[in-house]
């Protein structure tokens, strides 16, 4: 009984640090695709993802700017798909069409508010974290 209790308590105590270590590891992987000429927007986006879940958010990209989107994951048995739609739901870009490339540059000639969706292709993937970095070219 005591052994079980100790295992349970260790799980509760160490679980956040395991998650943090996973996220930090993910950040290191993502950063590889984020060269110095790109300036981060000052925020880091990560979330746990389970099968049948999709991540979606809205963002505004400003005209005459080139942005880099980097998407990475520690999910197993699944490929990370990130797609960019305008607010009329016209598909502007998806990395699915480009062999699931972990990064892509988007050059905006005019300001566009977009919806970014992050998804995993295989529905039988093991739950894990996904991270997205966005930056503009200096």
């Amino acid at each position: 009984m005591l052994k079980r209790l100790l295992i349970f308590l260790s799980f509760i105590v160490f679980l956040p640090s395991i998650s943090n270590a996973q996220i930090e590891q993910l950040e290191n992987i993502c950063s590889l695709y984020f060269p110095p000429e790109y300036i981060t927007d000052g925020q880091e986006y990560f979330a746990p993802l389970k099968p049948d879940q999709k991540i979606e958010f809205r963002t505004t990209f400003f005209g005459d700017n080139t942005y880099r989107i980097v998407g990475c994951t520690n999910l197993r048995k699944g490929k990370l798909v990130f797609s960019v739609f305008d607010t009329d739901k016209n598909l502007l870009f998806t990395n699915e069409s480009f062999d699931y490339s972990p990064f892509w540059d988007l050059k905006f000639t005019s300001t566009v508010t977009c919806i970014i969706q992050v998804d995993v292709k295989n529905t039988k993937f093991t739950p894990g974290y996904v991270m997205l970095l966005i930056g503009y070219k200096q």
Partner: protein
Amino acid sequence: MGVLSMLLLIIHLFFITCTKLLRYCKMLAYRLIKIATISFALILLFGCKSSENKDRAPLVADEPADTLSTLIKFDNSVFPLPSPWQVSSLIKKLNLPYNDKFVNKPDNYQKYTTSFKQSLNLGIYGTDLSYLNIYEKIQESVSYLGTIKKLSEELGVTQAFEPEVFESIERNINNRDSLTRIIARAYANSDFYLKTNDRHDIGALIIAGGWIESMYLLTQIVQENNNREIINRIGEQKHPLDNLIELLTPFYYKSSEFSSLIDDLIDIAYEFDGVIYSYTYREPKIDPEHNLIIINSQSRVIMSEYHIQIISKKIGALRNKIVE
């Protein structure tokens, strides 16, 4: 005596409930107006959609964006762009003159004793540092760095602003581009640290402070220089402001300071509803060799003089309330 105390307590509780109800109704009204506006816009859009849009070929097989999958948000985060660094880049591009009245004085940090004000002003000082950086104000930048260091210590985010970050900034103080990159990185580290340590409210306030100061800089500049690009950039903040309100809303009842800040931002958002924003989809051009896509869709902002002035006034009042 006991009956009187009871009566006073009931009256007090009644007033608290009424205040909360009023705030709730205000937020509800704001959301309903937003839904109505979006619905109206959608009716207009589908009613007037051009044949060009109907004939376009999608990048992959026709797959609707909506699915039965659960949609979740990035830790309830949104991207309230432009980041402070992007505003500075625009100012730099337009060769606008420097004005020291636009920035918050570094010594003011001593007045900020609550974590609420410290967080907001940490965001404000980050934007100011970025503004100083484009004019190569080295001496002033050092002073602002000291202030940022002190505020981050007060807030307990020293792990995000590690000594190496400040050493790196000091080493690159003469290199404008490197400095922007290092400052942006430091703020991203702080955001990461706060999110992984369940201090989302502090992170949201730093972002809010950065956005408010960026808007303050733009609206102050426009008073002296009626530049079209700056006016457009102000008008384009309609959606980022909605995102910012959404980011802060979970903390509405955390304190009266939070609810007051959100109410002020909602009030500004009402003014933004008067800004006309039009959008036309155009086929993007792909350059697979360079992992690049050129988004050719076009947007247009129409902002009246009245809206420029009223938004500038309300942003100024909010910003001054934060720095005072």
